[in-house]
C-alpha cells in the first residue's frame, strides 16, 4: 500500500493506491500545505488533529501590497477621526482609536504595513488633532502627549510584528513536525523502502520545497530514486540537470563531501555572479537559470556512519530561504530514511537467507530415475518463508525407490530446522535399505532425543517398479492417493500409526499394496486438504475428483491440484506436493512380474 492521504474538503482520507507504484502520480498525495504560507499549513494540521482554529489567516504579502494596506488604513482612520473630532473636542481620547488599527495592520498585513501605518498615524494625529487648535504653536500638553503617543504606537507595532513572526515560526515548526511524523509513518509501512522513499520525496513537494531529489548510493554509484518538482513541466529539466550534474552517477566532489562527511550542505542563496565557477557552482547556476532555484539544501541519508544516499531540496524566489530549523528537519528526515533503508535491507537479507535455506533443504531438482516421471511443488505459508513440510525421492540401491513426504508441526525457522535434520536422517536410514517401519522407528527414536522435539507426521514408502508393489508406513499423515492410468483412484489408508515425536509408544508396521502399472502416487501435506469450514472427507473427495478430471501424468496432476486446491484462497499452512508415476515400460519383457496380481490390483 502506498501511504498517502487524500485531502478532500479539509478531511484527511487515507487511500490505497494498490500495489502498482510505477507511474503513479503523487502530486495529489503530497500534503497540500506550504510551510511558507503557514496559515494553510496550520489549517491542515488542525484538520488532521480534528481541532479547529478560528479562521485567522496570516498572508505573506509583498511590500507594495503592505504599503497599500497602510495607506488604506490610515486614510480610513483620517476620515473617521476627522468626523469624530466635531463631536469630541478633546483630541487626546481619540488617539486610542489609532492603536488597534496599527496592531491589525501589522498583524494581518505584515511588518511593512504595520510600520507604515504607525508613521502615517503619528503624522495624521499631529496634523488633525493638535495643529488646528494651537495655530501651529506648540503647547505644553502637545509636547507631552505626542511623543508619548508615538512611543506607545511604536511599541505596539513592534510587539505585534514580533508576535506575527513567532506565529509564523510556530506554524512552520508545526508543519515540519507534522511532515516528519507523516514521513516516519510512510517509512514504517513497508520494508520495500524504495516505495516509501518515493512517497517521502513526494511529501516534501510542495510542503517543504519546490523540488526534491532523492538519491541512493549502491556499489559506489549514485542513482536517483525520485526526482520531483511542483511544476510537472519542470521535472524533465530537473532530471536533465541532475544527469548532467558532474558525476551524478558516480561520486562527484561535492556529493562525496556530503556523503562521506555526513554533513549537511546548505546554500542559503545562489548568487547571480558569474565569477570563477567550480563544478558545483555551475550546477547551482544552472538550477538558478533553468528552474529559478534560489536556495538548496542537501542532507545525507545516514545512520550509524553508514551513508545510504542523500536528499536534495530546493526552493525558488517565492519562498523563504532554508534556515537552521529546515536544516535540522532535513537532517532528521535523512536519518529516518536511513533507518528505514537499513531495516529494509536487513529484512531483505534475512528473507533471502531464509529462502536460500528453504530452497536448499528441499530437493533442488528430482534425481533422474529411469522409468519414473516426477513432479513436486512446495508453497510456504508465507511468501518467501520457510516451513516444516518436505518431500524426498530416494533411489534405493536395489532398484527400488523411496518416497517420503513429511510435515513438522509448527511454523517458521524452527520447524524448518527440525525438518532439515529429519530429512538427512531419513535419507541415511532409507539408503541402508530398511523397510519403512524400521525407517520410521529409527526416526522416531532420533526425534525423541532431539532438543527441537516436535510432532511430525510422515509417510514413507518403498516402491518396487519391477513388481509395482508398495510397502508403506504412515505416521499420522493424510493417506497418499494412487491414480491409475484409467483414472480410478484409491487412498492408501494402510500402515497407519501415530505421528512421530509424540510420547505414546507407537508400533510401526509395513503395509503392502500393489498398484497398476503407470499409476501415479500423489503425496501431499495437510495444508492441501485442511480448510476451515470443510471436513477432511470433503477435501479427500475433492482431491479424488480433481485427480480424475484429466491426464494422470504427474505434471498434469500437480498443476490441476495446485490450480484447484492451492490457489484461490489464502494458504494458512505450508503445502507440499509430490507426484511420481511409475512406467511399466521399465519392466523387461523377458522377466514377467511374479508379484503383480491384476485381480487384486490397485482398485479395491
Amino acid at each position, binding site marked *: 500500500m502506498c501511504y498517502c492521504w487524500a485531502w478532500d474538503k479539509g478531511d484527511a482520507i487515507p487511500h490505497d493506491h494498490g500495489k502498482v507504484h510505477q507511474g503513479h502520480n503523487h502530486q495529489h498525495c503530497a500534503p497540500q500545505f506550504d510551510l511558507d504560507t503557514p496559515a494553510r499549513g496550520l489549517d491542515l494540521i488542525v484538520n488532521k488533529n480534528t481541532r479547529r482554529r478560528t479562521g485567522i489567516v496570516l498572508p505573506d504579502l509583498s511590500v507594495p501590497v503592505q504599503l497599500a494596506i497602510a495607506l488604506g488604513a490610515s486614510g480610513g482612520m483620517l476620515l473617521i477621526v476627522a468626523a469624530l473630532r466635531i463631536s469630541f473636542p478633546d483630541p487626546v481620547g481619540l488617539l486610542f482609536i489609532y492603536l488597534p488599527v496599527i496592531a491589525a495592520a501589522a498583524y494581518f498585513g505584515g511588518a511593512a504595513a504595520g510600520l507604515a501605518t504607525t508613521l502615517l498615524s503619528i503624522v495624521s494625529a499631529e496634523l488633525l488633532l493638535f495643529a488646528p487648535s494651537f495655530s501651529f504653536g506648540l503647547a505644553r500638553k502637545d509636547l507631552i502627549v505626542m511623543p508619548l503617543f508615538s512611543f506607545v504606537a511604536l511599541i505596539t507595532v513592534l510587539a505585534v510584528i514580533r508576535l506575527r513572526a513567532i506565529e509564523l515560526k510556530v506554524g512552520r515548526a508545526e508543519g515540519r513536525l507534522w511532515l516528519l511524523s507523516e514521513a516516519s509513518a510512510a517509512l514504517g509501512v513497508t520494508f520495500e523502502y524504495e516505495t516509501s522513499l518515493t512517497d517521502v520525496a513526494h511529501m516534501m513537494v510542495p510542503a517543504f520545497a519546490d523540488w526534491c531529489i532523492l538519491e541512493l548510493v549502491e556499489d559506489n554509484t549514485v542513482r536517483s530514486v525520485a526526482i520531483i518538482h511542483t511544476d510537472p513541466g519542470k521535472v524533465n529539466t530537473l532530471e536533465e540537470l541532475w544527469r548532467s550534474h558532474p558525476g551524478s552517477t558516480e561520486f562527484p566532489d561535492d556529493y562525496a563531501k556530503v556523503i562521506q562527511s555526513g554533513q549537511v550542505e546548505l546554500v542559503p542563496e545562489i548568487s547571480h555572479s558569474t565569477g570563477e565557477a567550480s563544478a558545483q557552482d555551475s550546477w547551482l547556476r544552472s538550477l538558478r537559470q533553468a528552474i529559478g532555484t534560489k536556495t538548496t539544501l542537501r542532507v545525507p541519508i545516514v545512520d550509524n556512519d553508514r551513508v545510504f544516499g542523500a536528499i536534495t531540496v530546493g526552493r525558488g524566489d517565492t519562498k523563504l530561504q532554508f534556515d537552521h530549523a529546515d536544516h535540522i528537519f532535513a537532517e532528521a528526515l535523512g536519518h529516518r530514511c536511513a533507518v528505514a533503508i537499513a531495516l529494509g535491507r536487513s529484512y531483505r537479507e534475512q528473507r533471502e537467507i531464509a529462502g536460500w535455506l528453504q530452497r536448499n533443504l528441499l530437493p533442488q531438482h528430482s534425481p533422474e530415475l529411469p522409468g519414473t516421471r516426477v513432479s513436486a511443488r512446495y508453497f510456504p505459508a508465507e511468501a518467501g518463508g520457510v516451513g516444516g513440510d518436505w518431500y524426498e525421492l530416494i533411489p534405493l540401491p536395489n532398484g527400488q525407490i523411496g518416497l517420503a513426504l513429511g510435515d513438522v508441526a*509448527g511454523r517458521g525457522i524452527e520447524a524448518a530446522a527440525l525438518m532439515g535434520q529429519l530429512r538427512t536422517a531419513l535419507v541415511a536410514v532409507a539408503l541402508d535399505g530398511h523397510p519403512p517401519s524400521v525407517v520410521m522407528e529409527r526416526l522416531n527414536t532420533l526425534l525423541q532425543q532431539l532438543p527441537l522435539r516436535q510432532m511430525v507426521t510422515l509417510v514413507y514408502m518403498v516402491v518396487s517398479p519391477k513388481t509395482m508393489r508398495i510397502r508403506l508406513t504412515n505416521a499420522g499423515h*493424510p*493417506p497418499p492417493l494412487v491414480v491409475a492410468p484409467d483414472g480410478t483412484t484409491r487412498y492408501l489408508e494402510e500402515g497407519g500409526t*501415530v*505421528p512421530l515425536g509424540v*510420547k*505414546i509408544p507407537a508400533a510401526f508396521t509395513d503395509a503392502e499394496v500393489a498398484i497398476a502399472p503407470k499409476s501415479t502416487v500423489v503425496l501431499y501435506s*495437510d495444508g492441501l486438504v485442511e480448510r476451515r*469450514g470443510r471436513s477432511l472427507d470433503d477435501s479427500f473427495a475433492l482431491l479424488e475428483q480433481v485427480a480424475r478430471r484429466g491426464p494422470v501424468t504427474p505434471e498434469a496432476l500437480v498443476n490441476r491440484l495446485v490450480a484447484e486446491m492451492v490457489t484461490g484462497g489464502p494458504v494458512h499452512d505450508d503445502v507440499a506436493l509430490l507426484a511420481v508415476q511409475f512406467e511399466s515400460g521399465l519392466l523387461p519383457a523377458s522377466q514377467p512380474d511374479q508379484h503383480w496380481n491384476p485381480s487384486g490390483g490397485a482398485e479395491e
Partner: protein
Amino acid sequence: MNVWGAVETESLDGVQVVHISGEIDISNEKAVNARVMEAASAAPGPMLIDLSGTRYLDSAGVRILFDVAAHFRAAQRLLKVIAPESATIRRVLTITRFDEHVPIYNSLAEALATL
C-alpha cells in the same frame, strides 16, 4: 487465545469435563494447552475432552491431544474424548490414529455412561 476458540471446564460427579469449542490452531495452541492441562491437574480421576463444539483442529490441536494423552497415560488416569462421527474434526483423530489410543465417543452422555 484467539476469539474463535474457547475452553470451558466443568465437573460432573467428580469427572472433569473440558469443552473445547471453535478452532484450535497454531494461534491459540498455547492457551488451549494451558487451559486443558490446568483442568487435568485440578482434580485427580478421569477426564473427558469434549470436542463436539470444535470446528477446526490442525496439527497444533492434535499435538495438544497427544500431549494430554501421554500425560494421562503416565499418570495412569483415564482419558476419553467426545467427537461425534459427524464432526468435521473426527477424521483428524483417525488419520493420526489418536482413536487407537484414546477412546472416542459420540456424545457426552455416552462417554459418561462408560465411567
